[in-house]
C-alpha cells in the first residue's frame, strides 16, 4: 500500500505541468472520461456541414460585439438635443437611445465598426440559419434520431428573427420606428385583446416612453438567453448523435467517416471561427449598414419611402403589403382581417416547414435511425416540397420589397402587388411540379449511369457504319454510391371489404396516410433504382455499347 502511494506521488511530481493541471481538474470535474469520448470524435468533411458553424460563430460574434455596444448605449427615450460631431443633425431633438447610437457611430473610436460588425453578423447569422436549415431539410438530416434537434434549430431561427427585430428597433431611428409603428398596428388588429396588449407593451399610447427600454431587456437578455440555452442543447445533441454523412464507399449507417476532432477539426473549426469573424470584419470595413445618421430620429409624423425591415422579416412585410384591406364591422366591433390574417399566416409560413419532418415520419412509418443523408433527387416529394416552400418565402420577400423592385426595374408597384397576390398561390404549386420532375429526371439519369455507364463523349464508328457513343462502366465506388439509397414502398391499406363482403373499418387517418404515402412513393413519384439482376443482364449480355 505504501509503495503504491509513493510511486504514485513520485510519478505525479515527474508529470509535466499540463498533465498535473489536467489531473487536478479531473479529480474535480471528471474531464478524462469526458475527453475519452470526445477528443478523437470523428467529423465528416463536407462544405455544407459547415453552414451550422457559420451560424454558431456569427452568434458568438454578435454576443461579443453586443456586449461592447451595451457599454455605450443608453436604452432611454428621454428627449435630448444632439450636440455630437455629425453636422446635419446638430441641434435636433432626439431620444437618448438615438443620441447614444450617434455617439457610438461618430465619437467612440471603433464604435462604428463594432456596430456594423454587430449588424452584418446578424444578417449573416439569419441567412446562415436559413441555408443551414435548408441543407438539413433537403438531405433528410432531420430524420430520427434528430427530430428534436430540428425543432431546436427551428426555434433558434424564429427567436433569431425576433432578437433581430428588437435590436433593429433600439436606435429609435425613423426607419425602425416605422417598423415598431407597424408592429403596434398589427397588435391592435388582434381581436378582443389587441388594444390592451398594445397599451401594455408600449406603456400606454404609441410610442410612449418605454418601448426602447423594454425591447432592450428583451434584446440583450431574454431572447439571447433562451437562444444560448438552445445553442448549447443543439451542440450537445450534434455531439451525442454524431454527424450525418453522405453515402459512399465505406460509409454506412453504423459508422461515421472523417477526421478526428483533435487535431484536424480543432484546427479547422477553430480556424473557421476566425475566418468568419475576419470576413464579417472586412465587410464592416467596406460596406455601410443601417446609417441612422442619414435616416434621422423617429417622429411619428415623419416617414421615408423604402421603409422595410431587415431581410429576415421581409416575408412578413410581403404578407402585409399584398393583403387586401378587409375589415368587418359587426355589433360595434371591428375585425381587422386585412392586418390580422397576415399576422396569423406569418407563423404558419414558418410552421409549414417545421412540421414537415413529422409528417414525413408519419407517412413512412419508419422508426429506424438514419445517419446516411439523402441526395435531394432521391426523395422527390420532399425536395419538391422544400423548393415550393422556398419559392413561397421568396415570393413574399419580393412583395416586401415591391417599391424597390418598382423603381429599379421600372415597373408599376400595383402590378407587382397583383403579381405577388397571384404568385402566392400559384408559384409554389408550379415549383413543386417542376422540382419533382427534375428530381425524377435526375433519378433516371442515375439509373442509366449505373446500368449503362458514364457517357464518355467518345464517338465510335462500328464496322457496319453505325455511330455509337462509348459508355464507360462506373467504378464500384460509383455503383455503390448511386444505389445506396433506399426506396420506400407506398403503404397499402388493403381491400376495404373483407372476404365475407363486410366493409372493413379503416380509420380516416390511416386512409389519409395511405394517400400521402402513394403521393410520396407511389408509381410515378420515384424511379425504381436498378436492381442487381437488371445490372447483370445488361453487363453480361450484348447490352454493351
Amino acid at each position, binding site marked *: 500500500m505504501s509503495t503504491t502511494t509513493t510511486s504514485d506521488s513520485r510519478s505525479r511530481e515527474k508529470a509535466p505541468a499540463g498533465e498535473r493541471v489536467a489531473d487536478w481538474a479531473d479529480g474535480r470535474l471528471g474531464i478524462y472520461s469526458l475527453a475519452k469520448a470526445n477528443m478523437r470524435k470523428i467529423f465528416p*468533411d463536407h*462544405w*455544407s*456541414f*459547415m453552414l451550422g458553424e*457559420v451560424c454558431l460563430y456569427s452568434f458568438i460574434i454578435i454576443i461579443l460585439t453586443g456586449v461592447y455596444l451595451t457599454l455605450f448605449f443608453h436604452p432611454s427615450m428621454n428627449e435630448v438635443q444632439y450636440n455630437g460631431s455629425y*453636422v*446635419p*443633425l*446638430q*441641434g*435636433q431633438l432626439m431620444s437618448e437611445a438615438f443620441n447614444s447610437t450617434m455617439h457610438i*457611430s461618430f465619437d467612440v473610436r471603433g464604435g*462604428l465598426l463594432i456596430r*456594423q460588425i454587430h449588424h*452584418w453578423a446578424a*444578417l*449573416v447569422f439569419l*441567412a*446562415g440559419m436559413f*441555408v443551414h436549415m435548408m441543407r438539413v431539410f433537403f438531405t433528410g438530416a432531420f430524420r430520427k434520431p434528430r427530430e428534436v434537434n430540428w425543432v431546436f434549430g427551428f426555434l433558434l431561427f424564429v427567436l433569431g428573427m425576433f432578437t433581430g427585430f428588437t435590436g433593429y428597433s433600439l436606435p429609435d431611428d*425613423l*426607419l425602425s420606428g416605422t417598423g415598431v409603428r407597424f408592429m403596434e398596428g398589427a397588435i391592435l388588429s388582434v381581436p378582443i385583446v389587441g388594444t390592451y396588449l398594445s397599451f401594455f407593451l408600449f406603456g400606454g399610447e404609441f410610442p410612449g416612453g418605454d418601448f426602447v427600454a423594454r425591447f432592450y431587456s428583451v434584446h440583450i437578455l431574454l431572447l439571447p438567453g433562451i437562444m444560448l440555452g438552445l445553442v448549447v442543447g443543439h451542440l450537445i445533441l450534434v455531439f451525442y448523435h454524431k454527424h450525418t454523412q453522405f453515402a459512399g464507399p465505406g460509409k454506412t449507417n453504423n459508422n461515421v467517416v472523417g477526421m478526428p476532432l483533435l487535431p484536424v477539426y480543432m484546427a*479547422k473549426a477553430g*480556424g*473557421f471561427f476566425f*475566418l*468568419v469573424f475576419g*470576413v*464579417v470584419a472586412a*465587410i*464592416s*470595413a*467596406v*460596406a*455601410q449598414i*443601417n*446609417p441612422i445618421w*442619414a*435616416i*434621422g430620429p423617429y*417622429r411619428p409624423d*415623419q*416617414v*421615408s*419611402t*423604402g421603409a*422595410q425591415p*431587415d*431581410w429576415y422579416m*421581409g416575408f412578413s412585410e410581403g404578407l402585409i403589403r399584398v393583403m387586401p384591406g378587409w375589415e368587418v364591422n359587426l355589433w360595434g366591433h371591428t375585425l381587422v382581417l386585412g392586418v390580422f390574417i397576415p399576422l396569423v399566416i406569418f407563423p404558419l409560413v414558418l410552421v409549414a416547414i417545421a412540421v414537415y419532418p413529422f409528417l414525413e415520419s408519419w407517412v413512412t412509418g419508419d422508426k429506424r435511425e438514419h445517419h446516411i443523408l439523402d441526395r435531394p433527387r432521391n426523395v422527390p416529394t420532399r425536395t419538391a416540397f422544400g423548393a415550393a416552400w422556398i419559392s413561397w418565402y421568396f415570393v413574399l420577400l419580393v412583395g416586401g*420589397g415591391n*417599391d*424597390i423592385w*418598382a*423603381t429599379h426595374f421600372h415597373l*408599376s*408597384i*400595383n*402590378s407587382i402587388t397583383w403579381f405577388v397576390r397571384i404568385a402566392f398561390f400559384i408559384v409554389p404549386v408550379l415549383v413543386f411540379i417542376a422540382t419533382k420532375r427534375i428530381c425524377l429526371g435526375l433519378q433516371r439519369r442515375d439509373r442509366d449511369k449505373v446500368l449503362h455507364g458514364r457517357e464518355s463523349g467518345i464517338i465510335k464508328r462500328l464496322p457496319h457504319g453505325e455511330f455509337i457513343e462509348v459508355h464507360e462502366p462506373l467504378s464500384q465506388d460509383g455503383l455503390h454510391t448511386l444505389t445506396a439509397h433506399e426506396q420506400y414502398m407506398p403503404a397499402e391499406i388493403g381491400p376495404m371489404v373483407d372476404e365475407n363482403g363486410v366493409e372493413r373499418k379503416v380509420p380516416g387517418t390511416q386512409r389519409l396516410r395511405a394517400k400521402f404515402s402513394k403521393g410520396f412513393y407511389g408509381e410515378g413519384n420515384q424511379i425504381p433504382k436498378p436492381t442487381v439482376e437488371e445490372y447483370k443482364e445488361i453487363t453480361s449480355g450484348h447490352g454493351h455499347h
Partner: protein
Amino acid sequence: MKKLSARRRHPLAAVVVLLLALAATGGLYAVFAPASKAQADETAQSLAIDEGQKLYAVGCASCHGTGGQGTSDGPSLVGVGAAAVDFQVGTGRMPAQQPGAQIPKKKVIYSQAEIDQLAAYIASLGAGPSIPTKSQVSPEGADIAKGGELFRTNCAQCHNFTGKGGALTHGKFAPSLEGVDPKHIYEAMQTGPQNMPSFPDTTLSSKNKQDIIAYLDAVNGDDTENPGGLELGGLGPVSEGLFGWIFGLGTLVAVAVWVAARTAKAKKS
C-alpha cells in the same frame, strides 16, 4: 440603275437604306426644329417674349395649345410661371418624348438662353413663380439640421431619407435628387411639376427651401461621406439584405468549401 438593283440584296443594303432614312428624318427635323444657335439676347424683355413665343409655337404649342391654354394632351400653362418652364425644359422633361405614366428627365435640347425666352413668354401669359436667384438656392449660410427635419417631414416620404427616390402608384416614381441642380430642386418645390405637389413660399418659406437644399448638399452631394463604407444605394434593408446574402454568406460558403475540400493528392500534382 441596273447596278443599284443588282446590289439591293447585298448584306449591307439594309444598313445603307436605314442610314439614308435616318439622315432624311434628321435633315427634316433640323429644318423644322428650333434653331439651336442662341440668338444674341441683348435686347429688351419684349424681344425675349417674342422669341419665346416663336420657340413655343414650334416646340410646345401642339400639346399646350397655341396660346398656352392647354389641350387634352397637355395642361394649361397660364400662371405656371417662369420657374416651371425653367424646371421642365431645363431638366429635359419638356418637350415630352411620349406620353406615359410619367415624363422622365432626359437630355436638355434648348440652350439656357432659349429656356429663358420661353420662360419669359410663359410668364407673360399669367403671373407665377419666377426663377429663383443664385443666393436663394445657395447652401451657404443655411441651417442644415433644420433642412433635414423639413426634408423628413415634407420630402422623404417620396424621395427617400437622403433623396434616393422612390416608387409611386402605377409606374410613377419620385426621382432621385442626386446631382440635381439646386435651382431645379427649388423650382420643383415651388411649382410642383407633374404629380409632385407644390410647396409654395406661403407654406414652405424661401429660407426653408434653402435649408432643404443645404441638407441635400450635405447628405447627397458629390463629397458626402458615408462613414461606414459602401452606401449600397442608400436604399436601406433591401439592398443590405442582398449584400449580406451575396457577399456575406456567399464569401463564407466559398471559405467553407475551401476548408472542407480534400487537399490535392500527390498523384494528381
